[in-house]
């Protein structure tokens, strides 16, 4: 025989459990449904499932992109930096891409400087004394579009998304601005955009490459130090150059598997 009070408690607990499970399922459903919904591109939004651009002879239908940085060709002109800032409306003081100058000095040390957007000519950076330097070279930095991207892994709300082409994008309508991805990127590429209040990063100018154009920095580079293209197209310049020279990636020991590869990288580059 049931006690009336016990019955009321039991009934209360039953209802409370039902409400809790119901509320919990509501939190799961939208994300599950969202994966099945067709992607609709709004004006101004990145075409995440856009048609792959036409490729040269021998390319597969699904594009596989890559980026090559040839440090032996970079002259630190800084054209790529301005092009990126203008193209992507990057706020002053923040960068989607930058160029570092490494100088091996004869005393065994390494000096590192940041190349200004104007290039070295006319900048406040003192020129290196040729008598002190063994070797100097420039290293452009941009997003590595890691296959195992730590920034993507840590995003709590699916605001970091990988495009079908393997490019790491940010859904600015979902980003909560927690900054966890900024902490997780080992390369310092991500930042909290001071104008928009959401995470920002280099996306290899996804909006341009979806239109069969080159990324702004590649187009602006006067020496061909930045090469973008399809890895799966043997006719592309990228594929041809990768076939002829050994390349390396940054911070390989972290296991992020970067898609951006470098020619002439030294181990002091972080």
């Amino acid at each position, binding site marked *: 025989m049931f*006690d009336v009070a016990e019955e009321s408690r039991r009934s209360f607990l039953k209802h409370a459990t039902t409400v809790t499970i119901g509320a919990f399922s509501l939190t799961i459903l939208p994300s599950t449904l969202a994966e099945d919904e067709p992607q609709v591109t709004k004006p101004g939004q990145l075409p995440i499932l856009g048609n792959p651009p036409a490729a040269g002879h021998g390319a597969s239908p699904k594009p596989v992109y890559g980026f090559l940085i040839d440090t032996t060709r970079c002259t630190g002109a800084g054209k790529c930096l301005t092009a990126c800032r203008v193209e992507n409306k990057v706020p002053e003081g923040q960068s989607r891409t930058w160029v570092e100058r490494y100088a091996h000095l004869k005393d065994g040390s390494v000096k590192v400087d940041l190349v200004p957007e104007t290039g070295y000519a006319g900048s406040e950076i003192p020129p290196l004394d040729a008598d002190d330097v063994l070797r100097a070279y420039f290293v452009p930095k941009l997003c590595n579009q890691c296959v195992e991207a730590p920034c993507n892994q840590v995003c*709590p709300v699916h605001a970091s998304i990988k495009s079908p082409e393997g490019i790491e994008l940010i859904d600015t309508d979902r980003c909560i601005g927690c900054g966890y991805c900024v902490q997780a990127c080992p390369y310092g590429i991500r930042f909290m955009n001071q104008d928009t209040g959401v995470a920002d990063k280099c996306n290899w100018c996804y909006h341009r490459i979806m239109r069969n154009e080159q990324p702004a920095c590649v187009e602006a580079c006067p020496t061909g130090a930045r090469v973008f293209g399809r890895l799966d197209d043997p006719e592309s310049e990228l594929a041809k150059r990768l076939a002829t020279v050994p390349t390396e990636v940054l911070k390989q020991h972290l296991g992020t598997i970067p898609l951006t590869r470098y020619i002439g990288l030294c181990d002091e580059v972080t």
Partner: protein
Amino acid sequence: MDGHPLHTAPFIFPNDAHPAWSIMIVLYPYITGMVAGAFVVSSMYHVFHREALKPVAKLAVVTSLCFCACATLPLLLHLHQPQRALNVMVTPSPSSAMAGFGFIYSGYMLLLLVDVWLMFRPAIVARARSLTGRWGQLYRVLALGVLDISPGAAAIDQRLISALSVLGIPVACVLHGYVGFLFGAIKANPWWSTSLMPVIFLSSAIVSGIAVVILVYLFLCRWSGIEAEPECMRALSRLLWMFLILAVAFEGVELLHIAYEQEAEWHVIRELLGSKLRFSYGIVQILIGSLIPLLILPLPAFSHRLAARCRDSWSGVAAVLVLFQVLAMRWNVVVGGQLFSKSFRGFVDYPLTWWGREGLIAAAVVLAMPLVLLFGAMKILPVWPPGIDDHEGTIQ
């Protein structure tokens, strides 16, 4: 960066100039830690039957609830898009450690609410029946329609409280171990990336929770003009001492490990500790916050000859120093980990400001909020003085 033999001039990545995480992210684990720690004190009585802790058992769990209620405040103040905060629960990403926060936090909050409700149910029901007007209405709402406080019902409540207290221990460990994991799982940062981080955070969390309970208890005793129970104070001091030894040991082992291994980034961490964190790490966290309390706590913890006032003073001072230790530890992890660039060739400054959403004033308000809530809770529930439950019939 003179520490590395190959580096001559500092160089930082452009986006590293401004740390992305502010003092609010320092307060988040600080407050969460107190939640877990205060609950452990309560469980010591309810689960492990440490009778000496009976005077603070209920106070500890209500304190835990008040801190828990404020644990999301610093996060909301930090988020650049706080209006989307619920996305963490609406569209959580299973791969993200941070996505678990909403669920773990909500689960723990629910557990605390039910625990407190069960503990104070007899008092709530008694007042719901006896009071009229708005106060009566409030207690009738709080009673949630369950008005039975017969001995049979009380026995069931007692069993539920015991079960929740048992469940609460692993959940508290998950809650705060998880907070440590958020940092420990970031392989990009050598100052954070260690599997010891959850354990370090958990042990220091328990330490901070015990310290808060000691201070709240001493304050309320002084405020009410009653003497703190000697056995209770001794038990709390012993607990604090024991967990402080654990916390300091874990922190020490971690640093020793990094220093002895001397991996590639050691030169950055060595310089960080020797320059940017010299005061907050060397002076506050190690000397003032760890060594001094470790030395003075055995007095109130083990001596039976100390005068009551003297014993309480030693415990109180140690608790205050320990709270500074834990705050410094959070600061040194959260802010310290952002003071060097990921180039590992240069340091940046953290601009601490008075005003603004993430300024010192806002931080002080956030820290004061749980205490304000506790004051409010004491107005509604018979949390204090300890003997009040004898008349109100609350469950021990």
